[in-house]
């Protein structure tokens, strides 16, 4: 299988290499100084970046137009938990492999877990903040069933408090709805769509309306949404590989061949690495050795198995 391990790098590969290794401007500001320990008080507000707000409204609208549009859907929220407020900086969608109906949704957490590893490469302060889910009807408040699950789940979160958004599509569609507005401090509306925000602390008997504000900033996970189906397909094996190879790094690509995820696994020699490029229709393996990028004629669909077979082959040649 691996006799033709190393092929000569073609022109397009060189182009690709240049694009991979070109220094990329950081999308994040420098980390401000923070205290070593935060005392978490009850949340006074949730701050959404405009990127996150756009994702929620756009993807809720897209979801409703799909074949499964009558089902519930949702997102896990990542961001910064500060003493009295939380800033939401990333959304992790429920995924096509979610378990859902008109009355429930259980997220595909494998892809969300992998996505959290990718997003948190940029900032290790990002924490799980809460969950948004939708109701097909007009219930603008979490249900009793939600309370039973969330009441226990918030023990896993910073400050033992979570943020919960409910999306509904029960508002009047006005021609003048060119932008979102807030009829109440905890409610955002745009056209017929509405998100109502709540918080729940450990031990609370009910959710509390949580004022929401918007600031300028990204949805750090949005570039992953373009190929979420691909992430879902490979998530379990990539996550396993990541746990076994702690130095592995991720890079999200978007070029003329479409979106992709590049895994880089450093080798013993400085600068050398195995790279795996995952696109919706293929998995390709590369060897970066002595500053040269070489394509490996090895097309194992299972990423972890493919990497270990390649490492074994390299070990026999060392």
């Amino acid at each position, binding site marked *: 299988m691996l006799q033709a391990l190393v092929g000569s790098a073609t022109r397009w590969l060189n182009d690709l290499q240049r694009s991979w290794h070109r220094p990329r401007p950081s999308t994040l500001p420098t980390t401000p100084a923070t205290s070593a320990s935060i005392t978490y008080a009850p949340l006074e507000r949730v701050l959404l970046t405009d990127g996150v707000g756009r994702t929620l409204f756009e993807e809720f609208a897209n979801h409703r137009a799909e074949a499964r549009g009558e089902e519930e859907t949702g997102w896990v929220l990542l961001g910064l938990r500060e003493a009295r407020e939380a800033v939401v900086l990333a959304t992790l969608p429920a995924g096509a492999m979610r378990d859902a109906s008109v009355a*429930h949704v259980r997220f595909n957490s494998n892809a969300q877990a992998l996505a959290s590893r990718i997003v948190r490469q940029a900032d290790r302060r990002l924490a799980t903040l809460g969950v948004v889910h939708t109701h097909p009807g007009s219930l603008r408040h979490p249900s009793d069933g939600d309370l039973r699950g969330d009441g226990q789940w918030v023990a896993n979160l910073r400050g033992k408090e979570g943020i919960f958004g409910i999306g509904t599509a029960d508002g009047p569609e006005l021609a003048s709805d060119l932008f979102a507005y807030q009829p109440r401090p905890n409610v955002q509306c745009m056209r017929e769509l509405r998100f109502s925000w709540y918080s729940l602390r450990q031990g609370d008997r009910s959710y509390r309306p949580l004022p929401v504000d918007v600031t300028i900033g990204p949805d750090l996970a949005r570039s992953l949404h373009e190929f979420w189906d691909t992430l879902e397909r490979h998530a379990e094996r990539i996550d396993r590989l990541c746990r076994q190879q702690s130095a592995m790094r991720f890079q999200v690509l978007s070029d003329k061949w479409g979106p992709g995820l590049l895994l880089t696994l450093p080798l013993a020699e400085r600068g050398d690495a195995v790279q795996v490029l995952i696109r919706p229709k293929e998995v390709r393996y590369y060897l970066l050795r002595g500053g040269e990028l070489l394509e490996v004629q090895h097309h194992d669909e299972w990423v972890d198995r493919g990497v270990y077979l390649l490492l074994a082959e390299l070990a026999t040649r060392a």
Partner: protein
Amino acid sequence: MDFRPLNDTERRQLINALRGNAESDRAILMDRRDTSFLGTTEEVTDEEVISAIKSVPCHY
């Protein structure tokens, strides 16, 4: 150049930060103006984040 002894709190914070850097790869923050010690970042482990994601309950 100022050589000021650290007080007990500062010394304890610095030792904790150095331990966190050595054991958990946590960043140590430095004042860009005078390179003095500013503390550590409030980092969250992968395990904490992923455990919370994996345990998200079914919603209704």
